[in-house]
């Protein structure tokens, strides 16, 4: 199995656990939304660029993909 995919998976699972424990004990409200969405952005890009292999796609697709999650993450923090 692809070593960089395994490393990405370990990162994704670690970030998932961090998400869970951040919400359980560390933060609330706007602060929590910022932490959660920060982690979501990293995970989203990890899946897109590594698992879907968007890293080898045209720049336009990378910009659209990254742009979507950044705008969405920002909106969530604003509305939370």
């Amino acid at each position: 199995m692809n070593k960089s995919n395994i490393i990405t998976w370990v990162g994704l699972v670690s970030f998932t656990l961090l998400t869970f424990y951040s919400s359980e004990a560390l933060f609330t409200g706007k602060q929590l939304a910022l932490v959660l969405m920060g982690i979501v952005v990293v995970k989203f890009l990890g899946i897109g660029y590594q698992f879907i292999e968007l890293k080898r796609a045209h720049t336009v697709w990378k910009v659209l993909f990254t742009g979507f999650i950044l705008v969405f993450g920002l909106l969530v923090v604003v509305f939370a």
Partner: protein
Amino acid sequence: MTETIEPQDKSIYYPPGGLLIWIIVFLELLTFGAFLIVFLAYRKADLETFTSAQQVLNSTLGMINTIVLLTSGLFMAAGLVELKKGGIKTHMYLGITIALGILFMALKGYEYYEKIELGIGFNTNQFFVFYWLLTGFHLIHVLVAVVLVSYMLYNIKSGSYSSTNFEDVETAGVFWHMCDLIWIFLFPIIYLLH
């Protein structure tokens, strides 16, 4: 492991899996995204109801399901890499992907059973309208992904796809990963944000 680089890789018209699936991916992301922003607006207007309703959710089960989906994504990616290089583990990797998709649906089914046992339905309150709709639509997507990848696996076994003819499998793979992408922002917003 070396990754297969196709000549059309950098073309704007050929993103991984093809142009059509990416139109679908962006439409789905925008739909779920807009739905979640509306959810947050309703939540802000009635924070007390939403916070108390959220406490009924089983966030541990949600976290386990997140890990199940992420792991299925790893095996989907591995299966495609194996197919592209003509490896022998494609069947095994895609089989594990499908099994993990079924496990996700089973855990989600258990979660729904828990709610129904507690008398929680579609009309319990505004929070649960969003909960059933958002998680239900996502579950339907996972079901479609399981059917798609199962069909691809059947065709790979019958020799219809190979290291030189894998575009449809790549497209199904993008659909599978789309289910991951939706879940990784749906889960923290519905289950964890308080």
